[in-house]
């Protein structure tokens, strides 16, 4: 696990949380979680006030903790979503029209300064992004492997569902291949901490990973055809319909988001 990055959640770790732990969120129906993810994605798109967005983010953070998941890891995992924010919202924080905070920064383009509006925008965008990121992780880390597979199989049209199911199954295999290659190279003194002088080695490691993927897919074809594959990995496992009270919560959250948007944001009269 130390071999790969800690900025990206390792699917094996995520699965381990889902399979081995048991928290309140583990017992929530997977469809409910999918529904809530959708409602949150909608909410962060239509909500227009920082206080509301921050409250939503805070609530999601609390849920993450209640589910028994580690806050310590979140910081590392936030680095990728934050990258988008930093590269888009930071320039905006300077450019956004409004009252400037503190002094101006003279640049060849003219004076630059962070405006209040820019700062608020940055905070809003952060809350928007991290709310969904955090809840998506919460859902992934509390939903069993087979339930995830079933949900994927149901949500996606053919042949995308087939592709997704194989991807889910083989991600673990490919991760181990990649990790073994990195370990083997390191054990012979390769210094992987510098890219440019090791670019060919990186290419070989990644190339071998791809090659191993392709050759496995060639063997997989034989093995699937040997069992009469006709384009259909159907899952017999079943994820039941959510219980009434969960359905009520999901429906309620959509009503709340749509209602708020209609009234407060788009000004639909009642």
């Amino acid at each position, binding site marked *: 696990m130390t071999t790969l990055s800690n900025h990206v959640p390792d699917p094996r770790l995520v699965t381990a949380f889902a399979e081995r732990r048991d928290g309140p969120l583990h017992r929530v129906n997977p469809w409910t979680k999918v529904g809530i993810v959708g409602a949150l994605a909608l909410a962060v798109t239509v909500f227009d006030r920082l206080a509301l967005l921050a409250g939503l983010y805070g609530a999601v953070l609390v849920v993450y903790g209640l589910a028994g998941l580690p806050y310590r890891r979140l910081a590392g995992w936030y680095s990728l979503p934050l990258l988008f924010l930093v590269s888009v919202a930071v320039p905006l924080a300077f450019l956004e029209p409004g009252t400037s905070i503190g002094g101006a920064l003279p640049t060849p383009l003219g004076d630059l300064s962070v405006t209040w509006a820019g700062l608020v925008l940055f905070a809003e965008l952060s809350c928007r992004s991290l709310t969904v990121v955090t809840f998506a992780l919460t859902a992934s880390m509390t939903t069993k*492997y087979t339930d995830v*597979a079933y949900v994927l199989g149901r949500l996606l049209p053919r042949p995308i569902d087939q592709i997704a199911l194989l991807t*889910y*199954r083989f991600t673990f*295999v490919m991760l181990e291949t990649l990790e073994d290659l990195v370990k083997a190279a390191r054990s012979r003194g390769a210094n992987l901490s510098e890219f440019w002088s090791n670019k060919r080695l990186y290419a070989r490691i990644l190339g071998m990973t791809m090659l191993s993927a392709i050759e496995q897919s060639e063997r997989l074809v034989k*093995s699937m055809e*040997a069992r009469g594959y006709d384009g259909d*990995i159907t899952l*017999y*496992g079943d994820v039941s319909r959510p219980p009434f009270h969960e359905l009520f919560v999901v429906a309620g959250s959509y009503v709340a988001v749509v209602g708020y948007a209609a009234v407060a944001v788009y000004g639909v009269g009642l």
Partner: protein
Amino acid sequence: MHDVEFSVYPDEVVALVGGNGAGKSTLLEHLNGTLVPDDGDLVVDGTPITEDVRARARKAVGFVFQDADTQLVAPTVLDDVMFGLQNDGVPADEARERAREALATVDAGHLEDRIPHYLSGGEKRLVGLAGVLVLEPSVVVLDEPLAGLDPERSQLVAERVAKIREDGISVVLSTHDLEFAAEVADRVCVMADGNVAGGGTPREVFYDDALLAAANLHPPSAVRVAREAGLGTTTKPVTGTELVELLTAATDTKPVQTPVADADGPT
């Protein structure tokens, strides 16, 4: 690969042996119709396998591949065993029932809800076997069934092979482990350089030095021991058990050492 003649009779276990790259996997894949011969005919159950009957060959022949990981495609063990049935259009309830039975046959019922990724190598192989047995093939093909397995799990596979044969299914397997071949096979087929170099009962093959040498193989250790000790010219033991029987016969009139408390054989 050219001019390979290979036939499997009902209720027998055939072991393909030969060095790395001898063409064992290639020959086995022809049996399954996943490879089409460049030239020549394949005959399964008396029917020549041509393009249009390949689908039938695939059903008649169950295949467990050398690489256990690529055999398991579904998210759970039970789904995986049901995979072939569902391709056949068997209704879900019946398929589930039959899959459970097949898992039980290979003593893997407890794995039903597991995720294939987290199985050990031996468990993966057993599940792969169940996924094939469930289709009730007339021939089961196993490519290197012992690869990567510990002795305990190898023993389990050997027992399953014997059981499958008792159920009236022929088994064709490839292996590097000649002791295993000696133990389970009715017939051994020796491959070298992409061709069948010879074959016969384990007793014939494992005492045929010229044939084994041509295939870069060494006789199994029971054979070596029996020969080097000057035993077995008439009985020709090929497995450890047979060797022990012979030895006890050879030594019973003359106990060379103090009897051993925990030995099974009479001394």
